[in-house]
């Protein structure tokens, strides 16, 4: 059992939970994730370690209400607990002094980007962050990202906050300005990561992305999370989740992520027939 010690609503459809997990907090590194299983009957779902505090013995997860399991998780309150929490999983992001690092986050990806930007800055890099959302109401962690970066750019698709446009527009400007970029790290919806991969490939800028394949165990045992990278099958949970954006078979990833849409809808409908409805307010 893992107790919830803090809960925050970071917007209408995004929830933060801080959980007591001292052993994981002592080991966590930027880029790693945990597998969460709310109750005896629940799915195992992967969520990035968005923050951790070894002294307090806690970890923080931030998640978007995407379907049944995340909606149910959003209903857990401080003082209640989560049944299973396994981690830290996945390879940690390689953090070293590269020079100039551009960190790009879209939507909920910003929660996953924060620890990486923070670690890159601590390693002595010039961290330029670009974060985007569809609308101002969906933008999260602005203050934290400001702290974690040397320079922060914000975009919204509809212009309700920051610059109107996409994160890729800002990246293009930085690239066009002739500024040397040593490495780019991007996390967000697949279409966003794909656009960035296409943008940086001709310029030969090393670009890493964090993939969110469907997972079960997260320990390399099932192969559900397989992706094709450079023509080879890789398991996202143990070989990733970071991969070279220029080598990924995106088409396959998009298809595999859609595998269970009908079942996800049914699971959600079944849940909402019996739930309090707060998550769908």
């Amino acid at each position, binding site marked *: 059992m893992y107790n919830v010690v803090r809960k925050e609503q970071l917007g209408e459809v995004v929830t933060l939970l801080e959980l007591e997990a001292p052993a994981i907090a002592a080991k966590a590194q930027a880029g790693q994730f945990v597998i969460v299983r709310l109750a005896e009957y629940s799915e195992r779902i992967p969520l990035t370690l968005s923050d951790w505090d070894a002294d307090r013995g806690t970890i923080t997860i931030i998640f978007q209400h995407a379907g049944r399991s995340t909606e149910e998780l959003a209903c857990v309150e401080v003082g209640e607990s989560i049944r299973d929490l396994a981690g830290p999983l996945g390879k940690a992001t390689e953090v070293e002094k590269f020079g100039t690092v551009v960190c790009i986050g879209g939507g909920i990806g910003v929660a996953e980007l924060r620890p990486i930007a923070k670690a890159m800055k601590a390693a002595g890099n010039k961290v330029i962050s670009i974060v985007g959302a569809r609308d101002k109401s969906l933008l999260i962690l602005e203050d934290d990202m400001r702290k974690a970066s040397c320079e922060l750019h914000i975009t919204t698709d509809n212009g309700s906050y920051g610059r109107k446009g996409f994160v890729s527009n800002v990246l293009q400007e930085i690239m066009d300005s002739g500024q040397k970029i040593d490495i780019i790290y991007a996390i967000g919806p697949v279409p966003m990561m794909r656009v960035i991969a296409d943008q940086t490939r001709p310029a030969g800028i090393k670009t890493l992305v964090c993939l969110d394949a469907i997972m079960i165990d997260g320990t390399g045992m099932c192969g559900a999370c397989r992706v094709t990278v450079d023509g080879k099958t890789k398991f996202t949970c*143990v070989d990733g989740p970071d991969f070279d954006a220029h080598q990924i078979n995106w088409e396959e990833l998009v298809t595999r992520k859609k595998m269970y849409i009908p079942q996800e809808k049914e699971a959600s409908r079944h849940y909402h027939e019996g739930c309090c409805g707060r998550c769908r307010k």
Partner: protein
Amino acid sequence: MSKNMRSREPMPHQDPKDRITNFTEVALGYSEEQAVGEAQRCLNCKKKPCITGCPVEVAIPDFIKLVAERDFKGAITKIKETNALPAICGRVCPQEEQCEKYCILGKRGEPVAIGRLERFVADWEAANNGKDGACSASKAAQSAERIAKVAVVGAGPAGLTAAGELAGMGYDVTVFEALHESGGVLAYGIPPFRLPRTILKREIEYIKSLGASIETNSIVGKLYTLRELLNSGYSAIFIGTGAGLPQFMGIPGENLNGVYSANEYLTRINLMKAYMFPTHPTPIRVGRKVAVIGAGNVAMDAARCSLRMGAEEVTIVYRRSRTEMPARAEEIENAEEEGVKFSLLTAPLKFNGDENGYVKSMECIRMELGEPDASGRRRPVPVEGSEYTADVDTVVIAIGQSPNPVVRQSEPGLETTRWGGIVVDEETMATSIPGIYAGGDTVTGAATVITAMGAGKKAARAMDKYIKDKLRKS
């Protein structure tokens, strides 16, 4: 020899028509009368050849004699002297390859049904626990004083056995298990209709009652490294992490939606209980026509689960012939009775997908058997021009597993083979790092429950000696 001596008591089963609609146990177990009748067939041979076939050396004639005398409590106590998981072994051991293979009666007729009797006795104990003054055999003369702390990595049959043995010897044992549930393959692979989960849980509780504690959700190599465990007060470590890494064939279309590794397929169904979807919301997609590639126990389990999940046609696709199928005869029979089809001497070449990326057909080629290969089995060779395409909407690949790499990646000093198995001294199960021992599938590659248990037991003895020697010197 009378006819009665030649043939064993038959095992009552759920009717195949009914059982493919549920996940409850197929084999129903002996009644007391049947068990006593079967036990009376045993000749109580002086030389006990049957025991040589059992990796944990169950005192077979002794416990069977007690069954024949209706002393069931005595029988379970006798079994538990050497085997802490009898209800599991009685169900899943390939007895025809182990103890029963060496039974004298097998020369002229059917061997004594040792596994079924073992199962009967264990189930009898569960049913009569407390009632009849029966209680769990107390090997755990648990002294408050513990000799030293030891760690076990992985709560599969190898790890659980090592843990039980070490706890019984007076060690303070902690088992670290990666998943949220203990049992290893017994929990995520073998379906409940072969091994009901209440029985698995009961035998795991017994291991705990001997004094071992289990920490689930603890991935060694990630949460703690082996070195950290050794440095934080554990005097020795046993690694029983199994062979969990699924192998794929490397043919086109393997990553299409609807193409599963057997591990994923069985984990979704058996560990995550997708057969109770949507109450248990882990999804699975079982189509109308399922092809299972491979013919081992894993393949039979995947095929039989598919029927129970509602598939209309389930076919085992295997590149060799019937005689080479590695699954237990009993499992093949069960699968056939339930309506699983067999496409033998056939190999898949390619999977084709529909416009949405789901598998829709499979290209195959016929094979014929050529000269024997390194394994001694005749090598399958493709028959030119025999290619054909079959419609399928789910494919399960059950061609084998390799050892999981997480532990060895975190410990470069651990010597491993080319295929990732941990190298051990076969006498002691000691690895290349002093104080670290290993056994089960992670050493042998995919094998059996009872060989994994035997390895756990052997390692426990060596660990005990290692620790005591060290304590003596210090």
